[in-house]
């Protein structure tokens, strides 16, 4: 089976620039320095003072930090994926090839997330330092890694779909960073706000229900709660997955319309659109 030609081309284009090794090296260096700093800070220079609970804290901080970094880096790689093709005037030619719109989107999503996935994978040895002192268990690491990879692909998908719908990279970038900010900041703040309302007035079960739901859409909250999930108590990650899968599926419809309006021309009013989106 032949690999998606777009994926191969994008890999080639991305990996041959100096930017890629610089980003990877810089990121790994930062993570290493931070890990040493956190470990050192926890024990105040007395390595025999290391306790498993402290090591667990370092693991959580590192993984949350990594989540923030990759969440905000993903739009930088994906926000111009399709709109960039349109702006460079290469999209029209691509659409006259037998590549399907799904194939184009898939190639763009995978190539946009590839570097981020690589970033997460190359930092795995850094996490191993945490295991030296106990605290976190390998299942937690696998859960965190899996969740981070899912979140990267999910954000990349959102960004590629936005870049297909928005026509211009500027708008697409605004939409992508806006969405990531809502996920990372707004959902967290609103969720905790509702939870505090419930704590002050325990009768309001309504606010507790919504607090739990909204917090389950926040990647940082879900990642922090993965310890419980590994122990079999939390199911927030499931809410997170189905919600964002549904959002992506909904956004897929206008994206396909942008790429192949002919598919929708048999629907009522389908022929009245301008079909100028290739230029």
């Amino acid at each position, binding site marked *: 089976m*032949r690999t998606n*030609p*777009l994926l*191969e*081309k994008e890999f*080639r*284009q991305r990996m*041959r*620039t100096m930017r890629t090794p610089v980003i990877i090296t810089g990121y790994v260096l930062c993570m290493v320095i931070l890990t040493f700093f956190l470990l050192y800070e926890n024990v105040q220079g007395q390595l025999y003072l290391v306790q498993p609970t402290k090591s667990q804290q370092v693991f959580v901080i590192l993984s949350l930090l990594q989540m923030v970094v990759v969440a905000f880096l993903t739009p930088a790689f994906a926000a111009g994926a399709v709109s960039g093709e349109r702006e*460079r*005037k*290469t999209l*029209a*030619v*691509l*659409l*006259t*090839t*037998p*590549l399907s719109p799904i194939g184009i989107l898939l190639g763009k999503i995978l190539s946009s997330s590839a570097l981020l996935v690589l970033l997460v994978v190359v930092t795995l040895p850094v996490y191993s330092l945490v295991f030296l002192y106990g605290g976190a268990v390998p299942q937690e690491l696998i859960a965190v890694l899996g969740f981070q990879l899912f979140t990267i692909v999910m954000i990349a998908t959102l960004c590629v779909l936005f870049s297909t719908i928005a026509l211009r990279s500027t708008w697409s970038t605004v939409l992508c960073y806006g969405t990531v900010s809502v996920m990372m900041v707004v959902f967290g703040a609103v969720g905790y706000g509702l939870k505090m309302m419930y704590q002050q007035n325990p009768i309001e079960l309504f606010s507790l229900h919504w607090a739990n739901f909204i917090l389950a859409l926040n990647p940082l909250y879900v990642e922090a709660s993965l310890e419980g999930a590994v122990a079999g108590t939390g199911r927030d990650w499931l809410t997170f997955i189905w919600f964002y899968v549904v959002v992506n599926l909904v956004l897929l419809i206008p994206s396909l319309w942008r790429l192949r*309006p*002919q598919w929708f*021309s048999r629907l009522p009013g389908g*022929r*009245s659109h*301008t*079909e*100028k989106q*290739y*230029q």
Partner: protein
Amino acid sequence: MILTQNLVKRYGKMVAVNEMNLSVDRGTVFGLVGENGAGKTSTLSMLATLSTPTDGYAYINGYEVSRNPREVRRSIGYMPDSFGVYDELTVMEYLRFFADCYDVDRRLVRSRAEELLERVRLTDKRNTYVNALSRGMQQRLEIARCLMHDPEVLILDEPSSGLDPRSRMEMRAVLQGLRDMGKTIVISTHILHELAEVADEIGILRKGELVAVAAIQVMLQHSNAYRTLVLCSQGDDDGMMRVLAEDKQVLQVERGRMGVEVLYAGTHTQQAALLTRLVETGVRLTQFTEKPTDIEDLFLRLSAVQEGM
């Protein structure tokens, strides 16, 4: 090979293509000529499956563009009027990428790419990055890209636009080479004289309507019915003007920088008789020549005829 039946394209209330009926035989180079906004790009984008006809049908290689777009895409190589390239790829990688998009057998890709690069005169640029190529070279690379999957039909939208005269000549040579390959080609342009050396047939598009379709030779013969003669004389201009005024085939007389320009509707025999009369009257002619017919003139005349209808 290419057939349209009452093809219509509307954008809102604007009619871009109106009831177009066109037939292009296999191996024919068809030039679609028209001013900006005449509907050339709208027609070609429908043929290239990029937009859906509002009404009517278009067939390529027996496949209807709305119903069998996948088969149509495999049958065509499309070069849009304004296109971009993937800058960070080399010429060879660029061609290989599009070969992969069309699922071309990998064992054939290299040899076909080499053959096409030779055809478009870019062999020595095979390892050059695409962004280092001049605009003319990029345009020729696009032609090679269109041919990577060996399509039967080429749809080229203004392939020479934005090129300097030298690159335009090189492009013309490439297009002549394509004609020799036996491909069915549709070329749109507003630079008419370019088509005279390349196209077999020309269709003139005006405000979305195909106002004339003819073989290029027939068009040029037709244009002979309205020849422009250039006359110069020593001294006696008035005598020359009197003779010209008496000839019923003389439609228009204008004094130009090169001499007197006469729009003449007579046959070659009548033209010879006019020359004899001028000489017999004592007009001392230093020049009596027929101005080469420009296809552009013909286009303007036909357009004017349509305008008057």
